[in-house]
């Protein structure tokens, strides 16, 4: 085990993250800054939630339900605030663009920033919930929890981390699109999906729950990705693939 399993779990949990980062985000420095800023915002929301709930931990299993609900609610509120703040930032960027004689940010740019913010959110989640635990897998032996005797604990964590990374990343893209186009159904989809995914992971608390919990979370991830893909394709992909056309697509 050891190094092999450690690297394996890393690739499962963070492989797509690294790929998305390297291909879509790393070439543009501003997007890297967006990743860091988004990760910081998410960290702050998590710290706020943890200060409130610290007194109740470690607690009985039922404590998890209100904890999860309130924390997810807080994150969704922060998401809306993030969007509002982004609008202000975009104005400044456009002023700068004028000075530098570059085009203003268009819809595709906005989606790229959304992707970067989502990656920040997802990566921060992956590191805190996943990687901080998975790093132990590079040591000897493995670990099973009582409630999940079917899969090693690290594998379940890695799979959940992967699913949540995908969910959080693409939920942010959907959010930006939803608020840009003022689509209420999409705006509602985001918090609902986040809640569903978090509640699905609560199923893991039951004995043998992970057999159901992990596929459920992946189902959420698949739905999120599918929905996001459909939205983006409808908005952007259906036009010609001429880059000039994409550039000109204004907000």
């Amino acid at each position, binding site marked *: 085990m050891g190094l092999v399993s450690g690297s394996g779990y890393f690739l499962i949990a963070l492989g797509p993250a690294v790929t998305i980062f390297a291909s879509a985000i790393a070439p543009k*420095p501003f997007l*890297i800054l967006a990743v860091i800023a988004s*990760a910081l915002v998410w960290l702050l929301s998590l710290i706020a939630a943890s200060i409130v709930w610290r007194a109740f931990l470690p607690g009985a299993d039922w404590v*998890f339900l209100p904890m999860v609900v309130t924390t997810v609610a807080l994150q969704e509120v922060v998401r809306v605030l993030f969007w509002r703040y982004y609008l202000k930032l975009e104005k400044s960027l456009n002023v*700068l663009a004028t000075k530098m004689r570059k085009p203003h940010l268009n819809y595709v740019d906005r989606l790229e920033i959304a992707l970067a913010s989502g990656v920040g959110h997802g990566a921060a989640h992956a590191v*805190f919930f996943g990687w901080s635990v998975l790093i132990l897998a590079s040591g000897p032996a493995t670990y099973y929890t009582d409630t999940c005797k079917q899969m090693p604990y690290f594998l379940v964590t890695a799979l959940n981390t992967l699913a949540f990374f995908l969910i959080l990343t693409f939920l942010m893209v959907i959010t930006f699109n939803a608020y840009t186009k003022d689509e209420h159904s999409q705006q509602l989809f985001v918090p609902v999906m986040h809640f569903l995914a978090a509640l699905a992971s609560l199923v893991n608390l039951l004995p043998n729950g992970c057999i159901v919990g992990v596929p459920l979370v992946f189902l959420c991830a698949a739905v999120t990705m599918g929905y996001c893909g459909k939205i983006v394709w409808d908005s952007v992909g259906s036009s010609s693939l001429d880059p000039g056309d994409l550039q000109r697509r204004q907000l």
Partner: protein
Amino acid sequence: MEKGILDVVGGEIISLVTPVSICMFLVVSMVHILDPHGEDKPISSIAMMAYNEQASDSFSEKLGGALLNAIVFVLIVTVVTFMLVALFYYRCTRCLKVYMGMSAFTVLAWMGGIVAVQFIRLYSIPVDVVTFLICTINFASVGVAAVFFTRMPILVTQGYLVVIGALVAFWFTKLPEWTTWILLLAMAGYDVVAVLTPRGPLNLLVEMAIERDEEIPALIYEARPNYPSGVQMPPPSSDAQTTRVRRWRRNSQASNARPDTELGESSRSASNAHPETTLISSEGDSQILVPAVPEVGILGSRLISPVGEAGSLNAVSTVMHENQVSDSHLDDDTAPLVQRHAQSSASTGISDRVEAEADDRSRRLHGTSQPAEEDNEEPGIGTSGGLKLGLGDFVFYSVLVGRAAMYDLMTVYACYLAIVAGLGATLILLAVWQRALPALPISISFGVLFYFLARLFLDPFVLDMSTSLVFI
């Protein structure tokens, strides 16, 4: 496809954040592999002169002892910095260079050697003493040459600077816990005082360097810009310098009239998104950006002072000197370029050229060395491009993160984000205040705050959830 603003904005910040991240990553890896719980017996050093922390001491003893250690350390650093200022004042640059070269060699060969031996021991790597010695000494010699004396590919120089910073930071993580935290806060405070007060040693150093238009003897990491094709940096030689100067002059004369256009077209320009104050850092020859107040920071004066015995090295900080390549030589009548603002060790190593807003800033030009007179001399303080960050900043950021690594990966990540956020905030302040700023205080305070928040609140919260396989 035309490059949009996303391709351009933030490039220079990232060019600093990347080496800082790499340095932190190196330190965290070394800590995690070699000393994950901070169990290594701390070596005696200046930072522990007043009090040797024991695990069995009481809370107040530890706190008091750590404060004493921190005060002693800051005093010693202040004294040494003033010595450095004096040496610089009396123009003993040779002496400084030799000293710094020796320090860098010690760090790379001795500290690097010890770390390498620990790795060899841990992984049972088969290597004999002779090979090891040859490799270490070569590694260290090339490092010293790359950083101080010759011009090498920029990646080599940058790489060695990062390695020096990582090794020094790793050594600092050997200090006992309380001492480390109080020391970090004390150094942040010292930084503020040293850079911002008029009589502060770093401020004096900076002012002297500006007056004389000489290079500050300081270890500075410089993020070189990407020069557009046709404006390559020629190999170092006085002829080359003259060539470069001439080339620059032609450019500058052409661009003198319309600096804005140059800025707009420069693919290297990056800026903070600040509507009123457009801060553009651009490298190289075509920009003429001058802040009203020269922002010069000096690399924190922390000197490596090896203690004579059996190799216990003291902490450090080096004022190292990096060869600046002059990329602009100007006549009296051509607009001088301002350059570089060396950063104080505490200061953000952002050397920015600020676009002069017509209404609120006057252009002030700094003459740089004339080509005829100074062919063989080092260019002055204003002459290089690129953002700079003092190596002392690298060291202390990495110490904080390294110490966080001894607790948990979560604290590492929280501190990393905090430090990067602090660095960003310092850059914004730099754009607003237009003067040399210390880079340590904001990042270190955020870092320490986030460490304790993460350790006390976040860690139990997240661990409780993830061990129960609940995710949010």
